[in-house]
């Protein structure tokens, strides 16, 4: 099948081309769109690309970091100032996929992929998108909830606040094949602590619902408490609340529900 490939130097033009054609898809690293084309997805008739350098820019100097949507996972791993994101970046694919896959594309990766987005959800990231009505910032939760309707919007960048300490952000991916492989479940936790108590906990889960979700009941169990055994047990017991996992080749929905609390307990306890 012959596609139309449109490459633009300006983000405005790329966004306009994307939003004006329902059958257009943005091509970042290729790991999603080219895969769909190889599988014979005839719903895509136009591929839109943009060369603007802003898409590959990393600003990691301050307390709030910004990653251009075209930043690859290999680039994140090469950036010392982004150490807190190295574990999620390293958990994705093999070296070739990390050289190709991008932060922006990961927002649209379906289960059992999209692990980096789990980390961004725990970090309460903001996503800058450009659509028909200009550029705007939206919360990552809102983007994920409306992901199917966002295909016409061009993701420009993702930003989040750097965790206060290395211990305040934790990430764990459970897969059958190591070091790479699709996710059985993926967990990330941001645990800001003030005066010995957790304030503003965010727990994010991957492969536990059609999109990445927050484990709000587990967050409530942690809020205002110290991170001790009792609190961790309460959070682990609440881990499945609000989840709706599916069966796939990597694990059944039942299995995922059985293990998510176990892995959340290990994550919060700092166990390997």
């Amino acid at each position, binding site marked *: *099948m*012959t*596609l*139309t*490939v449109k*490459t633009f130097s300006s983000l405005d033009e790329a966004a306009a081309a994307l939003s004006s054609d329902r059958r257009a898809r943005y*091509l970042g*690293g*290729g*790991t999603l769109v*080219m*895969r769909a*084309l*190889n*599988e014979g997805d005839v719903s895509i008739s136009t*591929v839109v*690309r943009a060369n603007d350098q802003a898409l590959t820019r990393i600003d990691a100097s301050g307390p709030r970091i910004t990653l251009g949507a075209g930043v690859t996972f*290999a680039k994140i791993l090469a950036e010392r100032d982004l150490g807190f994101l190295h574990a999620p970046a390293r958990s994705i*694919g*093999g*070296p*070739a*996929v990390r*050289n*190709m896959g991008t932060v922006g594309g990961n927002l649209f990766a379906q289960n059992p992929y999209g692990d980096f987005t789990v980390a961004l959800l725990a970090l309460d990231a903001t996503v800058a998108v450009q659509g028909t009505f200009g550029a705007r910032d939206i919360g990552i939760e809102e983007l994920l909830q409306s992901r199917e309707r966002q295909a016409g919007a061009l993701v420009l960048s993702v930003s989040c606040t750097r965790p206060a300490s290395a211990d305040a952000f934790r990430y764990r991916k459970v897969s059958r094949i190591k*070091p*790479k492989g699709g996710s059985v479940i993926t967990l990330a936790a941001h645990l800001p602590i003030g005066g010995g108590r957790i304030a503003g906990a965010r727990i994010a889960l991957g492969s536990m619902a059609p999109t990445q979700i927050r484990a709000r009941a587990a967050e409530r169990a942690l809020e205002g408490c110290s991170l001790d055994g009792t609190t961790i047990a309460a959070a682990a017991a609440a881990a499945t609340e609000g989840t709706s996992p599916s069966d796939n080749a990597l694990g059944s929905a039942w299995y995922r529900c059985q293990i998510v609390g176990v892995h959340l307990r290990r994550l919060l306890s700092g166990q390997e």
Partner: protein
Amino acid sequence: MAKIPLQFRHNGRDVAIFVDGGTNLLVALRELIGDMTPKFGCGQGGCGTCSVLIDGELHLSCLTLAEIVSGRSVETLDGMKQGPNLHPLQRAFADNFAAQCGYCTPGMLMAAKALLDRNPWPSRAEVVEAISGNICRCTGYEPIINAILAASGGRASG
């Protein structure tokens, strides 16, 4: 629909071809240039047998839009041997029985080359990580890991 002209460097040699819109690099290499060393495996980025180096970086050619390599350098297994001599990695694969059916071998060798080009003395863990995107259903991986480690120890330049 009009074909798209595409020029890039293929194993040190300038090539110019015409591709259909949406053609992936693997198809361009195999069907338009005649370089049959990158293999088609899964077409999904899961097996790694189509791996090539683009400007020295490991990429999956089946997931790469051919137009993206315009003006860039693409290396495949076909360019690895040096005249009549095997590349040290190829020699190590032969010496260590690192190929059985051989279908994964082009991708394994390119992944290994990407590693050794930036890290000539990798640890075993780094070798395992470097080939973690490449599937082999014959060898059990151990001979491949041993071959890469052997090549890293006794490797000539290049």
